[in-house]
């Protein structure tokens, strides 16, 4: 086992990793930017190294800084957390070269999954269901119509060179298709210089369902069930839960096994998440793989009893998975609310000094945070200040516990998204488990709704 782990991150996830290391009896090294000198992760790590100025690009994203910090402190492994360098194949490669263990998948796997088109091909080959789409650009309107009829409307016309919502058209019937293709081509040409467009199945109100996997270096892979993360705003997850209220036991097993097979096909190791869209008929479509720890990992920890961060560390140290698939059990229900220092209506960040910080506790409540009374939320980084995770015997209990925990939380000095979470927790559709990635549109100020099509894609 490792003797000393460097944590290449900040905030609550750095604290989460320090906690895991303490439980395993491993020393920790915090790295920090000048803006984080007084942060909890610096205080609670055994050693700390300032690696740069406040800007992430010069500190938390600074690979030589991180590696040098590991070298001067004699750390034998680096945990990258999420965000920042967590999906940097480069960091993983440099670690390899420097004989420092990178706590994450092999750099080749990170690289493969990071290239969306290669990843899709590999996952399709490994048997994951894909959203039907033309393999290349549309050759003629006739072909496009034939294809669209085959996969069924609505479809979406997308610029091959696209991005940012331009060159995109949702088409709901055969009549609209020709016009949509021509418009999209003109837009694509204007925006990217290339008129090529392709066609893909369009899901109106999909759910976001993802599957957590763990793989060791001995060929074993298990899945830890799914998380439903449909409550999003501009692709930012706001609230996650496990299990999904939409899945049956059979679907869970089937999806899980499919993902385990796909992970094995690419020799996946360490923790990872396979993200899917689910349509109203319960069909899944692979989106992408996140080759790292996710923000929302605690909901899975609560329903399985498995400490994912400790498993990551053990796996990286060469140990075998602590459970076989048959030993993974799912009990109860867990929900996570990301408490952000933001205006709950406009989502405008609200950095500043927190004078009072007290999160609700008691039965079934877990709080992951690096905030405290008399701390400062700096404007340089992510606005998430805490994760409140509730656990109950069933979804109802998890919801009522979350509700009262939020009601009993007190944050003064900055605005938080707690009022928004309470709105969601009182929404009849949410209570009934009726969710999709468009759920948050009902709470979005009208001025923002424009362009939401592009966002929803």
């Amino acid at each position, binding site marked *: 086992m490792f003797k000393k782990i460097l944590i290449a991150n900040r905030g609550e996830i750095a604290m989460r990793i320090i906690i895991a290391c303490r439980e395993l009896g491993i020393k920790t090294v915090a790295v920090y930017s*000048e803006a984080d*000198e*007084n942060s909890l992760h*610096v*205080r*609670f790590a055994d050693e700390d*190294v*300032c*690696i*740069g*100025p406040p800007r992430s690009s010069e*500190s938390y994203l600074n690979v*030589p*800084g991180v*590696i*040098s*910090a590991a*070298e*001067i*402190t004699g750390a034998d492994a680096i945990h990258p957390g999420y965000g920042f360098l967590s999906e940097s194949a480069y960091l993983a490669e*440099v670690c390899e070269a*420097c004989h420092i263990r990178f706590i994450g998948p092999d750099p080749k796997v990170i690289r493969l999954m990071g290239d969306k088109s290669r990843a899709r091909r590999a996952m399709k080959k490994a048997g994951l269901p894909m959203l039907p789409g033309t393999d290349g650009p549309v050759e003629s309107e006739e072909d496009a119509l034939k294809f669209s009829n085959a996969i069924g409307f609505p479809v979406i016309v997308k610029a091959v060179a696209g991005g940012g919502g331009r060159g995109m058209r949702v088409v709901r019937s055969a009549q609209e298709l020709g016009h949509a293709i021509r418009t999209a081509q003109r837009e694509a040409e204007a925006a990217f210089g290339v008129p090529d467009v392709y066609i893909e199945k369009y899901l109106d109100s999909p759910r976001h369902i993802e599957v957590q996997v763990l793989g060791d270096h001995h060929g074993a892979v298990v899945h830890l069930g799914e998380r439903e993360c449909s409550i999003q705003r501009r692709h930012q997850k706001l609230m996650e839960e496990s299990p999904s209220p939409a899945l049956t036991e059979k679907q869970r097993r089937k999806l899980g096994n499919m993902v385990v097979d796909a992970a094995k096909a690419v020799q996946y190791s360490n923790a990872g998440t396979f993200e899917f869209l689910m349509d109203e008929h319960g069909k899944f479509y692979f989106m992408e793989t996140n080759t790292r720890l996710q923000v929302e990992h605690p909901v899975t920890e609560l329903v399985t009893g498995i400490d994912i961060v400790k498993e990551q560390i053990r796996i990286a140290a060469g140990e075998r998975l602590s459970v076989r698939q048959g030993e993974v059990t799912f009990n109860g229900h867990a929900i996570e609310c990301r408490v952000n220092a933001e205006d709950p209506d406009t989502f405008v960040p609200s950095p500043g*000094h927190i*004078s009072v910080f007290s999160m609700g506790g008691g039965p079934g409540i877990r709080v992951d945070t690096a905030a*405290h*009374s*008399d*701390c400062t939320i700096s404007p340089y980084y992510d606005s998430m200040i805490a994760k409140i995770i509730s656990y109950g015997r069933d979804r109802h209990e998890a919801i009522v516990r979350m509700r009262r925990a939020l009601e009993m939380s007190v944050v003064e000095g900055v605005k938080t998204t707690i009022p928004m979470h309470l709105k969601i927790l009182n929404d009849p559709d949410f209570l009934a488990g009726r969710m999709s990635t468009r759920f948050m549109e009902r709470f979005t100020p009208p001025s923002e709704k424009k362009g939401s099509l592009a966002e929803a894609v």
Partner: protein
Amino acid sequence: MDFDEINKILDIVREHELSEFELEREGFKIRIRKGSPAHVSGAVAAPVAPGPHYQGHPPTHASAQMATAPEPQSAASIAAAAAAAEEVDLAIVKSPIVGTFFRSSEPGAAAFVDVGDTVKKGQVLCIIEAMKLMNEIDSELDGEIVKVYVENGQPVQYGERLFAIKARGDV
């Protein structure tokens, strides 16, 4: 002046973290103080409440925390001011990267510079090894080395002091 206007002023006070704000115009005067108490003429300087620090700071970091705390009138900041005064004419060369500090090009070789040496802008002062690369740290001004803060072979953090140089003009 109504409550809206007062609130706007208070927003400004908060936003800019002002401790005092005074505005006077015909037939109207407003004065606001915040945080620390007011010391007015003739007053015996009163002890000031400590700044809003997280009290649970482990002892190892206590001093660092204190030095960086925004305590305009505290003893700590007065001490800091004194320290600053002492070095007011000195240029401090800080480490731009994390790594290991070497005073010479190889073991056994002479140090690039020593206290009392005169250095020119662009002259190599030391090497910081990071990721097996030897990064030469140059002087940014002409002057005299008056202090070397780090011992040979020691690790340095970003922003750590390496040398103090008295600028040429002051020599």
